[in-house]
């Protein structure tokens, strides 16, 4: 019979031994998994060498093609420049003449650019400039150098902008010609008088502009306090009172106070 103390010691020793074996097996298997066989190494070396050689060939071919394209680009640049120079030479213009033409062209371009953003009212004030601009542009167009495409295109753009300005001016003129009209209605029901008509939102939205209506209809309104039902009144475009309108108003008030 073995005593219990000896059995306990044996068990403990066995456990320690198993643990040591297990650790050794784990330590042995783990690095072995990362290793490759000699054949596998040889195969990989061979594959990667082939890949490297192919890539080197590809790189060399791409480099050659890129160099060729760069040379083509340079040649095209030269061709473009010489074609442009030849085109300008066709017009027979000297460098000084070209510079002068360019300056005049830029002047008109700046002039047009300054008028384009103006409001209708401001453009109307500058309406005569549009004609001068057109005359300048026509003068440039007659010069031989204007035939060069680079200038010709710019002159065409200028013409199109001048046409836009002219169209706007024509619109302003037609609006002025077809000014608004108002038909007078009964005082008893609508309280129509020059003051109230001027005050209407769709007219001026400002009663103090009544002299405008009076002056525009002076042939039919002798006394601004008397307007007749059914009368067709011309309503001029809104804006501040003109000197004539102010004078007429002053005259009216002075007559009323005497």
């Amino acid at each position: 019979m073995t005593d219990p103390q000896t059995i306990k010691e044996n068990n403990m020793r066995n456990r320690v031994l198993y643990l040591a074996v297990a650790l050794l097996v784990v330590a042995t298997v783990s690095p072995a998994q990362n290793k490759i066989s000699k054949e596998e190494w040889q195969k990989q070396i061979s594959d990667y060498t082939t890949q490297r050689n192919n890539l080197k060939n590809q790189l060399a071919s791409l480099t050659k093609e890129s160099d060729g394209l760069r040379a083509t680009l340079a040649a095209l640049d030269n061709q473009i420049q010489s074609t442009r120079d030849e085109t300008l030479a066709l017009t027979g213009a000297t460098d000084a003449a070209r510079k002068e033409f360019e300056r005049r062209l830029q002047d008109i371009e700046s002039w047009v650019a300054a008028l384009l953003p103006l409001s209708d009212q401001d453009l109307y004030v500058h309406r005569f400039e549009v004609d001068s601009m057109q005359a300048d542009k026509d003068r440039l167009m007659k010069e031989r150098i204007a035939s060069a495409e680079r200038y010709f295109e710019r002159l065409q753009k200028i013409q199109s902008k001048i046409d836009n300005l002219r169209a706007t001016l024509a619109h302003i003129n037609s609006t002025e010609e077809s000014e608004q009209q108002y038909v007078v209605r009964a005082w008893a029901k609508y309280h129509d008088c020059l003051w109230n008509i001027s005050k209407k939102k769709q007219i001026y939205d400002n009663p103090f502009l009544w002299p405008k209506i009076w002056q525009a209809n002076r042939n039919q309104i002798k006394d601004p306090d008397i307007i007749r039902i059914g009368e067709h009144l011309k309503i001029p475009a809104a804006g501040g009172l003109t000197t004539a309108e102010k004078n007429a108003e002053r005259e009216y008030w002075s007559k009323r106070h005497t």
Partner: protein
Amino acid sequence: MKGMRNISLFLLLASSAALYSGCSSGPSADELAQLDQLKSEVESLKKEVAAKAVEKETLEMQVKQKRDELAAAENNQKLTRERLKSPQ
């Protein structure tokens, strides 16, 4: 019985140790380094090839644009000649 178990354990330990110490027929450390170097060379070449391909594509596009520009310049010259023959 106990003796048998100890002998088995000893054999297991000995064979594991032998395996661990490199008795298998694998490549040497230098050979493995050579493979790693080859791999990194291939990776680097792949990147260079990709960059070159992009560069070539960009150049091709530029050449196309320049050809169009040249065609426009030639056309302008033709128009200028015609315009000079019959001024506006």
